[in-house]
């Protein structure tokens, strides 16, 4: 690098750039937080959905599945599973695990009772109604 471009110039670009772009990021975040009520389906965020999210978390569902495309890539996307399979299928499927089919990927049985299954389905329904800019591309997720 040329000698006229000094270390202190480089340092100033670093500190100036970091501060400027972090403040810009904070500004965009504030705008996002204000825009979210119209997009994040919070009108349907009930107590039941919150309980469902807790169940989603304490059973580490994200360790195999994706939700809105984030998570592990071992098992199907669940952000749109409510539309793909419907509530009754989801509950029956969870209760029937593991399939025990030799050589197939296995999902543990999490011993959820009927009320818990309803909570989880409520959470998946709520998730599926978030405005994701039309992602995923099709029903297969």
């Amino acid at each position, binding site marked *: *690098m040329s000698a006229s*471009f*000094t270390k202190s110039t480089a*340092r100033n*670009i*670093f500190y100036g*750039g*970091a501060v400027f*772009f*972090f403040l*810009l*990021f904070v500004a*965009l*975040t504030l705008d*996002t937080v204000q*825009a*979210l009520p119209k*997009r*994040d389906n919070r009108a349907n*965020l009930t107590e039941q959905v919150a309980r469902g*999210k*807790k169940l989603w*978390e*304490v*059973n*580490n*569902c*994200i*360790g*195999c599945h*994706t939700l*809105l*495309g*984030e*998570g*592990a*890539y*071992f*098992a*199907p*996307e669940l952000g749109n599973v409510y539309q793909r399979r419907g509530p009754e299928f989801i509950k029956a499927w969870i209760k029937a695990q*593991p399939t*025990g089919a030799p*050589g*197939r*990927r*296995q999902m*543990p049985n*999490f011993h959820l009772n009927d009320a818990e299954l309803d909570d989880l389905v409520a959470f998946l329904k709520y*998730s599926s109604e*978030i*405005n*994701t*800019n039309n*992602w*995923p*591309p*099709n029903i*297969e*997720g």
Partner: protein
Amino acid sequence: MTSSAMATARAASVSAAANDPLTNVQLKYRSQAVAKPYFVAAIGLFVGQILFGLIMGLQYVIGDFLFPEIPFNVARMVHTNLLIVWLLFGFMGAGYFLIPEESERELHSPKLAIITFWVFLVAGALTIVGYLAVPYATLAKITGNDLLPTMGREFLEQPTITKIGIVLVALSFLFNLSMTVLKGRKTSISMVMMLGLWGLAIFFLFSFYNPDNLVLDKYFWWWVVHLWVEGVWELIMGAMLAFVLVKVTGIDREIIEKWLYVIIAMTLISGIIGTGHHYFWIGAPAYWQVWGSVFSALEPIPFFMMTLFAFNVVNKRRREHPNKAAVLWALGTGVMAFLGAGVWGFLHTLAPVNYLTHGTQITASHGHMAFYGAYAMVVMTMISYTMPLMRGREANSNAAQVVEMWSFWLMTVAMVFITLFLTAAGILQVWMQRMGDTPLSFMATQDKIAFFYWLRELSGVVFFIGLLLYIVSFFIRGNERASA
């Protein structure tokens, strides 16, 4: 004590002299030796990470392998959490070695550094045992997750009490280093290192924010994950690389520090707004598709500059350092970070592309090469440079270095193949599952691409052999001292 016992003790102390920090002439400051247990632990946990990676790789093709003993989600949690923890051990070891040398004084408290080491190691080990020993829901219950629910989110699966422990360990570490810097010489390298480490601790605090609103949860989850790996961790990486390059090339510090500032300036200018590439499809406003695409398209630039930087200063070196292996790791870090983080990141970062690739094996391919190329390799660069010094020699014997370089090539080439096979799997997955008029289901697609998962697993075995060879290299003595 009898005279013969005293003689034995004296003989023992003479043979241990090379390892004794009191008599080690290679260390400028005795307290730098506290880095050693950190690096040893890092390598040990690295082995565990790869073992669980191999288990998962096999579960991709033999779905019921080790079920129900180790379900996939448990193996993945162990794999990713061990990665994070061993890299943190590596960064901490690097901090304890680098900061005293840059500050030109002893570490504020070596004793605190050792206590912190044991606390972190025991907490980490207990967490991993918890993952393996009981169902995750039970672990959540017995660790009081209900009081402050933070568990069950990708990479942040640790029980809340472990997260609190991580914060305390980080504070103790940062206190120790900050006191050292404050009382000593302040260099650009040490300032950048400290900025990165403080940033790491501060952004981790967002892991305690877990709202019921899924969009807000995901939005701020990235303030830990993205602002770590595509933000402050790059500062730590840059500082570590700059430190080693100053030492092994003998190039004027002013030049290296100028490079460092330019690189990390580009990192944060591109990377902070670049967070937006995670906000395309999680409920955030559509304008993030523009902000995220434009700025994350710039993210390869700092990594490319890192490659230029490393090759440039090594080519213009003013001395021939006998530790050739460390130089190789430094150059390799530049190249592989650029390929893994830069090129493979760019591959799927533009919103129209990401619409199709989001959450597929393309993401996994990028994740593997980026973490190896940037962070695993920079920690191994630091270990390669510092371990011989802490063991009382400027460099290892030629024989040991040859084995270490073999391990470099085996691991690096294996990682290139892991990435290529996962990329192939990902392209086919996108094609079959998301494009065309008759898309296949997720599981039907997985069956069709199993061949590439087998090839990935094979590459993983080669990687593991490379890792074992890496460990072997520490035990090769060789009489011939490496010549300058």
